[in-house]
């Protein structure tokens, strides 16, 4: 985002925040790994909470407070609740659920690896050695995020909302279709 360069502190002699960032990152990655490898469905959903929460902490460490709380609100508070709701409605036994394995493990691994490489590549290439000045005014505060979003990125923002609206309408149409067929 709005990362003003504040000199170049170098990679050696990291600060406390940087160490915390790396540690939380490792925890997040570990939780994400367990999410996709555990054989217990509901445990996977709960590890997802840890992974998404870890991501929120990373945002916080990068001073993006607003993004962090929205992350918790939307992902932990709503998406995971929706996931758990779905799991409870279908079959989520306590203990292993071997029939939940679809056999696409290796393809999924390939897709996940490819997208991870692409994302890391893009982010590293875009930011390189940009450093956020953590001591100055918060660059990810609600104020800064809002101004940035609605001044520079307002068109993509609106396009996204139209896209989401279309998805919403599509979901309603799909879920209503069956009833009309029967009648």
């Amino acid at each position, binding site marked *: 985002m709005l990362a003003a360069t504040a000199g170049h502190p170098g990679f050696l002699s990291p600060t406390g925040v940087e160490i915390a960032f790396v540690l939380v990152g490792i925890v997040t990655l570990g939780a994400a790994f367990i999410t996709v490898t555990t054989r217990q469905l509901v*445990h996977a959903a709960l590890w997802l*909470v840890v992974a998404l929460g870890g991501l929120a902490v990373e945002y916080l460490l990068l001073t993006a407070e607003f993004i962090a709380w929205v992350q918790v609100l939307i992902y932990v508070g*709503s998406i995971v*609740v929706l996931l*758990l*709701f779905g799991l409870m409605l279908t079959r989520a036994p306590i203990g292993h659920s071997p029939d939940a394995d679809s056999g696409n493990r290796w393809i999924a691994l390939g897709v996940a690896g490819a997208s991870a490489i692409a994302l890391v590549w893009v982010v590293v290439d875009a930011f390189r050695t940009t450093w956020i000045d953590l001591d100055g005014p*918060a660059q990810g505060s609600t104020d800064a995020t809002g101004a940035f979003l609605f001044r520079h990125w307002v068109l993509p923002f609106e396009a996204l909302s139209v896209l989401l609206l279309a998805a919403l309408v599509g979901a309603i149409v799909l879920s209503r279709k069956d009833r009309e067929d029967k009648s």
Partner: protein
Amino acid sequence: MNDVLDVALRLLIVFAVFMVVPLVVGQAEHKVMAHMQGRLGPMYAGGFHGWAQLVADGVKFVQKEDVVPAEADRRIFQLAPAVALLPYLLVIVAIPIGPGEGAVGQVVDAGIFFVLAVMGVGVLGSLMAGWASANKFSLLGGLRTAAQLLAYELPMLLAAASVAMAAGTVSLPGILDAFEWWWLPWQIVGALVFFVAGLAELQRPPFDMPVADSEIIFGAYTEYTGLRFALFLLAEYAGIVVLCALTTVLFLGGWHGPLGDDGLGWVWTLLKTGVLAFVVIWLRVTYPRLREDQLQKLAWTTLIPLALAQIALTGIVKVAIN
């Protein structure tokens, strides 16, 4: 060193508030319900209105055996009460009770989002309890909890967004600084929506379908005993305190009052919170439980349109006065 001391002191005070105020609300509920229903309840322990019964109850809970059902998912079953309770402790840190930085545990820049986000996490505790108990009543309770949360999260957020628009900030102390008395009639619809949605999120009567004792025993908490059960109860009372304090801060002007704003602001906050908590208890005694379909209908066809109308009104007035 002074900073460390300051932070430690603040955390200590927040923790003390967290331990004391929910218990006071719990005791008030027992007494208010008793008097409204024309019965006395335990009156002797400790003397005045049997206040020490609360302590005795606590001792009883601690002494009870902590049972985990054989078929349950042990770790999740045992973790669930903590997940349900701790978010409220975190929320109390961000709620200002008086003017200035001295009267809030920690000033959070995106306060509204912090508070609502963390409150939403608490519901995961009920879901975990419902699933891990390996009991069909618990599972039904968990399902109802999730359905209720999904329905009522949206109106609550929209109502809070309306206040944020009015104040031009999402920080809780910032909203209080911007407060004027005429916000009260201006935001009254939002206030009602927020309070009702909050009640539903806490599963308080008349929205207590997830724990409906006549149908599914005690919903997600059916299998819990002893201290863990007490923690769930404590989470409910802490939830009432948080909801009432938030409604006070967002819609009723918090520490603003007819007189004595500067020195006695915290008295106003506590007074308004207390009155709202009384209303919560009052509703429990007066209204019958809503059925599941009535519950969903209220959220989707009444509260959300009302909240949207409130946002439109806020926007129009805001543009007009600028």
